[in-house]
């Protein structure tokens, strides 16, 4: 049939389904996300660069796409695998169909597959490389292609998605409904320089909302160039790929430690882990979802967090005399955040900016502002 599509994994497992939207082929590491809502944010999160995303929610596309929920300038996922993709878009903010949104970037969608079986496979076998194709039908060839994709470990993707040019960001959060409790952005008091490894817009909006002027700089910007901008604080963003190959950013950031308050999220957290002498490792299938419990070790309270990472910082590799472990994942007890005992530096593995996900951890942006205030 003309509208068939195939998802082939490197271990030879094949899922046959239907092609939605444009006929295309894509390659990437196959990961699953367990969030129920928020597909548009996922599509546009640059951290998914190099990855094919499987959504566990079987009904995708229901609320269409809109101009406000993008986390970057365009979709970054390589491909999408779902159980069912909606024919219509139904929501008061919707301005278009979610499939068109992906098709414009030639991103293939495979639907009607047993996504639960696929997720169980990835859970048991670990994330692996795969291909979605609605062009090639020879599954043997597709498996070969999957095996020829570079492995995620060792891959520097952050530099490829990072902005090429420095820019300023000044938009805060706009309410999605007359009932949403979003005030106007606070008056600008601080200047934050944000390293872009694949930064999500809601991080920028969240900083602006708290009275920060943000200058976004390319991932390879030197420490001197950053300091020349006279920042009140430096932010290290989320992003795709393995943190280990980011040796140049790590060198730069090492020279910033102690000289300015630093806050890191996700890849930014991993980069900081490496900067302070720790090690990172690849998780079996990563954390991708919006329901992960994280305990704040300083308060004992649990936050439900938004997560999207395939690598983690090994807490045992950190020097306990310098580093305080501040956040722990309660599902698998991996490290979710730490701070320096002497320098103004802290970071979390998860996403306090949410988008998508719960707002439990927004306080971290306040803490960053607090840190800048004190410094």
């Amino acid at each position, binding site marked *: 049939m003309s509208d068939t599509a195939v998802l082939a994994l490197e271990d030879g497992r094949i899922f046959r389904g239907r092609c939605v939207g444009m006929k295309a082929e894509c390659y990437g590491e196959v990961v699953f996300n367990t969030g129920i809502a928020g597909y548009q944010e996922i599509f546009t999160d640059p951290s998914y660069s190099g990855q094919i995303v499987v959504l566990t929610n079987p009904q995708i596309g229901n609320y269409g796409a809109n101009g406000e929920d993008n986390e970057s300038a365009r979709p970054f996922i390589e491909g999408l695998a779902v159980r069912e993709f909606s024919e219509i878009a139904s929501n008061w903010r919707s301005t278009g169909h979610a499939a068109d949104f992906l098709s414009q970037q030639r991103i293939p969608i495979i639907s009607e597959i047993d996504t639960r079986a696929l997720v169980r496979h990835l859970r048991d076998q670990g994330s692996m490389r795969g291909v979605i194709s609605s062009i090639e039908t020879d599954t043997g060839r597709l498996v070969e292609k999957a095996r020829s994709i570079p492995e995620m470990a060792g891959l520097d993707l952050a530099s490829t998605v990072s902005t090429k040019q420095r820019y300023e960001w000044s938009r805060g959060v706009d309410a999605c409904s007359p*009932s949403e409790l979003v005030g106007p952005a606070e008056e600008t008091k601080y200047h934050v320089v944000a390293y872009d490894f694949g930064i999500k817009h809601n991080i920028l909006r969240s900083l602006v909302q708290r009275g920060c002027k943000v200058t976004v700089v390319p991932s390879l910007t030197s420490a001197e160039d950053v300091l020349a901008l006279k920042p009140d604080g430096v932010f290290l963003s989320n992003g795709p790929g393995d943190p280990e190959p980011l040796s140049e950013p790590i060198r730069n950031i090492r020279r910033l430690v102690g000289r300015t308050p630093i806050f890191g999220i996700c890849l930014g957290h991993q980069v900081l882990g490496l900067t302070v002498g720790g090690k990172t490792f690849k998780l079996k299938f990563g954390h991708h979802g919006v329901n992960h419990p994280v305990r704040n070790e300083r308060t004992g309270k649990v936050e439900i967090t938004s997560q999207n990472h395939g690598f983690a910082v090994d807490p045992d590799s950190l020097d306990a005399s310098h580093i305080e472990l501040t956040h722990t994942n309660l599902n698998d007890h991996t490290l979710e955040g730490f701070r320096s005992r002497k320098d103004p530096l802290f970071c979390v593995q998860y996403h306090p900016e949410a*988008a998508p996900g719960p707002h439990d951890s927004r306080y971290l942006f306040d803490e960053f502002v607090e840190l800048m205030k004190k410094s």
Partner: protein
Amino acid sequence: MAKRTDIHKILIIGSGPIVIGQACEFDYSGTQACKALRDEGYEVVLVNSNPATIMTDPGLAEQTYVEPLTVEYVREIIARERPDALLSTVGGQTGLNLSVELAEKGVLDEFGVELIGAKIEAIKKAEDRLLFKDAMRSIGLDVPDSKLVNNLEDGMEFGAEVGYPVVLRPSFTLGGTGGGLAYNSEEMKELCARALELSPVHEVLIEESVLGWKEFELEVMRDLADNCIIVCSIENFDPMGVHTGDSLTVAPAQTLTDREYQMMRDGALACLREIGVDTGGSNVQFAVEPNTGRMVVIEMNPRVSRSSALASKATGFPIAKIAAKLAVGMRLDEIPNDITRKTPACFEPTIDYVVVKLPKWQFEKFPGAEPLLGVQMKSIGEVMSIGRTFKHALSKAIRSLETGKKFSEDDFDPAKIDQRLITPTPERLNYIRFAMTKGYSVKQIHEMTRIDPWFLQQMKHLIDLQAELEAETVDTVSGEQLEQAKRYGLSDKRVARALGSGELALRAKRKEHGIQAVFKRVDTCAAEFESFTPYLYSAYEEECEAEPTERRKVMILGSGPNRIGQGIEFDYCCCHASYALQELGYESIMVNCNPETVSTDYDTSDRLYFEPLTLENVLNIHETEKVDGVIVQFGGQTPLTLALPLKQQGVPIIGTDPESIDLAEDRERFGALLADLQIPQPENGTAASPKEACRVARSLGYPVLVRPSYVLGGRAMVIAYDEATVNSYMREAVVYSQERPVLVDRFLENATEVDVDALCDGDEVLIGGIMEHIEEAGVHSGDSSCVLPSASIPEKQLATIRHYTVRLAKALNVRGLMNIQYAIHNGKVYVIEVNPRASRTVPYVSKSTGYPLAKIAVGLMVGRKLSDYDLPRGMLPVGKNCVKSPVFPFNKFPGVDPILGPEMRSTGEVMGIGETFGEAFAKAQLSAGTALPDKGAVFISVTERERAEGLDVARKFADLGFRIYATRGTAYALRAAGIECTVGLKVNEGRPNIVDLTKDRRFDLIVNSPAGAQSFQDEKTIRRAAMRYRIPCLTTLSAARAAAEGIAARREHPARVESLQRLHARQTAA
């Protein structure tokens, strides 16, 4: 923060009888709470007046009180048991209201009992609509504009101000009783007056209408450390204007972006914190304007609710259990997730399927009630279904309802489409379907129904596919089409009908194409972690996760949605079956689709299949599990109708043979059996036309009882005193055919009716109880009060009953339970009906005697003998007097004639336990909501035949200080016996007559024994008036005597209580 060690003993208040708006879900939550607290080492004291519940099983609490849920009785229990704390949040609105009352009347302070779960301030803030609105506004959340009024004038003024329609919400009523929408000032006058009257505090909130807005609900949990999680989001298919309990609802929410969902989540958490619910589960309801996204908070329940039960079943996250643990100070992150074992309960469940809940209505039981849906809940029960997609789940849910009706074009009135789309009725889904086949677009239907286009589009897919199939035949249909049909959730039956084939032929056909069901797990985490609980649903997908074991296993078919005549009693039996199987070393597999029940809790059975109870679905499970036996006799009529078809497909049915079950329902063969055994039954005949029915009736002699064959809960039965009634019944009320004729029985007037539950192992019979009805003959057994042990039946007749029971049990080769209904007429015992299966009285008999009949029955079904159990022989003894009384939903159906008859209409039951029949009866009446008076006036009317006994009863009342009213004949006899009384006129004698006096509330109690055809209408009118004005009306002298004794007993012992455990221990010792 670990669990509290300063409290040891905790009181849990249940929700009482099943009523509309408060059903099995609180048995589920109460049972979970009991188990959870005991697991943590606390002692639990439970009180609930409903004997049909699992929670009142003596094994679930240290002390279980089946006593009236009033301050007086619960105070007595507290005084005796001295609990440290009271958990107020798992017993529904009843439990919550009673907890508040106990606190306000100082009982909790007096005995030093701490309220846990929700504090009194939080409950008040959440329940008082004005305080609630102020609280929401204070944290920046939007609410509909409103005003609280306590008089009609203010209501009218505000209505004019905000513009009609407006919503009326009386304060402190259950399930929205008395609420409504007023579309104009005239309606406002009527509705507002009624709402004011129904509110116990005479208060009504008039509110800006959010009719047609999208409706959502979030289930929230919070612990003492202020950790908060959302367990589940629910989106209503039906927009605002239809009570959530009457709405089709979907989990998770389908049409919200993450931004909008998070706004709602923030709102729900802020709401919980502001209201101050310290621990436990709550739900917050929102309405969203579909064009602007304006979001308002509608209400929140500071307790476990119907939707919490749904959310628990929808996600696999046990809200009530966790709520109980949080109430004793545990934190969410200290409690493990049972399903994944490795991760904590402190997370937000995510689901990779779609859940649909559909309500079950029974308007047909209440002629005169308009079948319209509004802000007051009318549904009796509900089903839930799980599918991989909304279409799949919707198709399954519709089938789970067992409406039995196949709507064809002829059933629809094309002229009514628009009206039916605009005004919600129980037939809404059918009319949407009909409109679509008539070419209405999704947009048009959306405009009329305000149902979100996304849902309508899904329905359209289903309809389009069915149309496509109708163009094919079983030979031309392709494998792809069949596969799509199955993935859309269409049943084999439905597909077969479209293709002009049969269900089983289609099943074979699709298997040829390799299309068969697989089973997926409900695991709280969308497969991110391994699941250790086999909680399964069917899907048409690639991979099956059932992983059946090699153990000996038995499947139990549940009873499906709650309905009148088939309710919680059967769930009780199914759960017991499961417990018994596990004790006997079998793997127990439960199949059911009712989310309110204990049976659908994932830890009740070894394995749970949340599936519709249809031949197709059960066969699918059997093919996967290959069970050693299937139990069909515990789930009421639903599994029984599957027994023979399953047997024909080679599925091993254990217990009584399905052929015997069928025999007992087959009029002719059963008649022959009775004749063989020389057991009398009322003379009877069958008819397949009005003419024939009249002829049969004439030959039997009036009055006659007319009913369809194969009945459940006495649907569409009538007692006819004349030919006109028979004629109109045959023409209007009943569907019949040559194969399924109408049954006509001679009606035994003034008979005493008796229910018997018995166990049989094939050789020996044990009678569980002989229950004497204390309502006049002709009232459906489910609507009758009855007493154990029997109060007035002479030993000779009891012996006959025992004798007949043993003979029938053996003749039908019963393995397990059976129920027989007898009538004693002029000293002669007749068999009315035999059901070789568990009956709705099984839990009542079990709790009265202390022997778990259902559990023993399962043993017998798998081959054990009665002699293997430590049981009395012959008949179980009852230590005290136990009265069971029915509870009716008439207050939900204004305009309906509340008269009792052969058609069952009660939704629930209560039990009263007493030293004397009188005391037990008085308690049961109190629990059922028609408390016997302490003083005042009694109206007495008895037939000539019963006059002597009547005098005796009248004297008792007179001695108790009651004023006596009587009809002329009775009055003369009373005066002659020296009993002072006032004469009341019969209806045909002039006015003011008895009915006028009843309506004028001159009587506090009515004793009116039926006198046959002449006074039939009179009696109906009196009874109707009594029902409406909530005056207890007794129709037999045994009940009247019991009432007099009960009133006397209460004067001596105002609130005597006893736990089942102590009662049973004493019984066994004796």
